[in-house]
């Protein structure tokens, strides 16, 4: 017992994903209560500069796991490096962001090291000695508290933007451990032929703090200009409902909902979206929901914090103008 709590520190192009800091911040008190060390574990190539990023959020230790073959994420490469390190160091807990990478990597590592895994969790707590996580099921219609059994290693992934990161404390320091994993080219069975970035520089929906979404009420792709303008003014990412995506107005990657992305922004503005269960499944954990729809019977009005029953083609541009005015004050 007491072998350490680890947080997989996801990075892309030398930038650490915010969710890493959210998890570290929240695991600090768990580590203190259990008397265990809290470590960040970062994989990649040329990531030495990231070594000091984790202490401010509560890490006691930072493992910097560097290898040429980790330059490009592959499940095989990352799983080998991480699983080997887990087997060597035997932490009691390993946590991931419930991101594309986290959900791709964690189950493979869990099987390899015989750990239990609870995915897409929204909170954690200690009940005496017992570590319990809470996670949505049935697209958020039910919440389950999950405990671990039959395992020495507990793993969980946490939904981005739900846990709150503490303010970084620059005075904190962490021990840096450089690790050179043993990976051979033959360990990596897939070949990444091409990476196509369509939304370079844009904040991904799953990490966005503010989202403005358009649905069936937008009536056509050309009308999204007003959504994009509002989004630009408030610093939001643009989303869409399934109806808009199925109609070909917006790309699949913009879809929020049960068969789209699950988002958890501070602010979600839904324009011309009826708010069916399937859409709510994708944005129901938003801290604040605003609905603009001319149908007073739309289900979204029972699920929002602020609602405007009116023509979005008049409301949205007016809202943009008003916000610009307030920001200029």
């Amino acid at each position: 017992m007491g072998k350490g709590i680890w947080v997989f520190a996801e990075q892309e192009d030398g930038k650490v994903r915010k969710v890493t800091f959210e998890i570290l911040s929240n695991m600090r008190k768990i580590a203190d209560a259990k008397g265990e060390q809290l470590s960040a574990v970062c994989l990649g190539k040329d990531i030495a500069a990231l070594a000091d990023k984790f202490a401010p959020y509560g890490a006691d230790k930072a493992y910097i796991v560097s290898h040429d073959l980790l330059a490009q994420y592959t499940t095989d490469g990352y799983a080998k490096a991480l699983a080997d390190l887990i087997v060597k160091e035997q932490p009691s807990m390993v946590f991931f962001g419930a991101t594309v990478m986290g959900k791709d990597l964690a189950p493979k590592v869990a099987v390899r090291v015989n750990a239990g895994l609870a995915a897409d969790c929204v909170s954690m707590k200690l009940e005496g000695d017992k570590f319990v996580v809470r996670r949505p099921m049935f697209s958020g219609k039910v919440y389950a508290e999950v405990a671990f059994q039959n395992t020495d290693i507990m793993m969980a992934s946490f939904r981005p933007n739900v846990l709150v990161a503490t303010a970084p404390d620059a005075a904190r320091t962490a021990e840096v451990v450089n690790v050179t994993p043993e990976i051979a080219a033959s360990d990596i069975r897939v070949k990444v032929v091409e990476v196509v970035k369509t939304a370079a520089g844009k904040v991904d929906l799953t990490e966005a703090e503010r989202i403005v979404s358009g649905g069936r009420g937008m009536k056509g792709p050309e009308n999204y200009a007003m959504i994009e303008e509002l989004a630009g003014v408030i610093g939001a990412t643009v989303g869409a409902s399934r109806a808009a995506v199925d109609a070909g107005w917006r790309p699949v990657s913009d879809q929020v909902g049960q068969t789209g992305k699950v988002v958890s922004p501070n602010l979600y503005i839904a324009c011309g979206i009826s708010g069916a269960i399937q859409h709510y499944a994708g944005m129901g954990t938003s801290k604040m929901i605003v609905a603009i729809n001319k149908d007073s019977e739309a289900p979204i009005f029972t699920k929002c914090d602020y609602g405007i029953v009116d023509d979005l083609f008049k409301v949205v541009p007016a809202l943009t103008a008003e916000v610009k005015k307030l920001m200029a004050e």
Partner: protein
Amino acid sequence: MKQVPDTEAQIRVKSDGTDVVLDGVKFIISPYDEYGIEEALRIKEKMGAGKVSLMCMGPARCVESIRTGLAMGADDAFHLDDAAFEGSDPLATAKALAAQIKKLEYDVIFCGKQAIDDDQSQVGVALAENLGIPHVSLVTKVEVAADKKSAKVSRQIVGGEEIIEVPLPAVLTTQKGLNEPRYASLPGIMKAKKKPLAPVKAADIGIDAATVGAAGAKTKGINFSLPPARTAAKIIAGASPEEKAATLAKALREDAKAI
């Protein structure tokens, strides 16, 4: 494939919170699994040969959904139904499925990226690891090479996509956008009644009961609850859309400090 409650279903929980209540719920094939069945059928049609087999772990009621998959065009099915499997967590499920699949020959295994009841996103990835084969998750396009030794797939990543070459056999987990699944036709439904649907017990696949089901699960739901209700919405009043917008802007900026 997994049988799950319909997306519209109202899910209730027991008053003591120890379980969910699925009485009276309508069941369907999990939508992401449907993309997998459809893609398998398309590959078989394109290659002009091959067999599509369904693997499903779950109670007796799953037969109905398995028959729907067969009606779509799958050739046969294996239904893992045993008290020993009950209470499995995703990793135990993957272990059991792997034990069955190991007995067969296969080129591609499709899994939904997640089942829309548990939403764990684990089984597909864990299955590949148990079988010792590679996987690619979130595939939106699949091209199997003519020699069936590899596939070129598109995979959704943050802010874009990756094109990946993966050797076969492999597990591919499906993402929306891969295809539009076909509906089962009436002739398909009739044919499905005669297609082989093999019930599979733990003993049939040589699996140690201690490693699956409630006995082998490494995670367990200990309490189930409905999400807290949102406080009632403030519907903004105003004489015009512009006036309402102004009120909203002020509320978001000053009261909620959301912008």
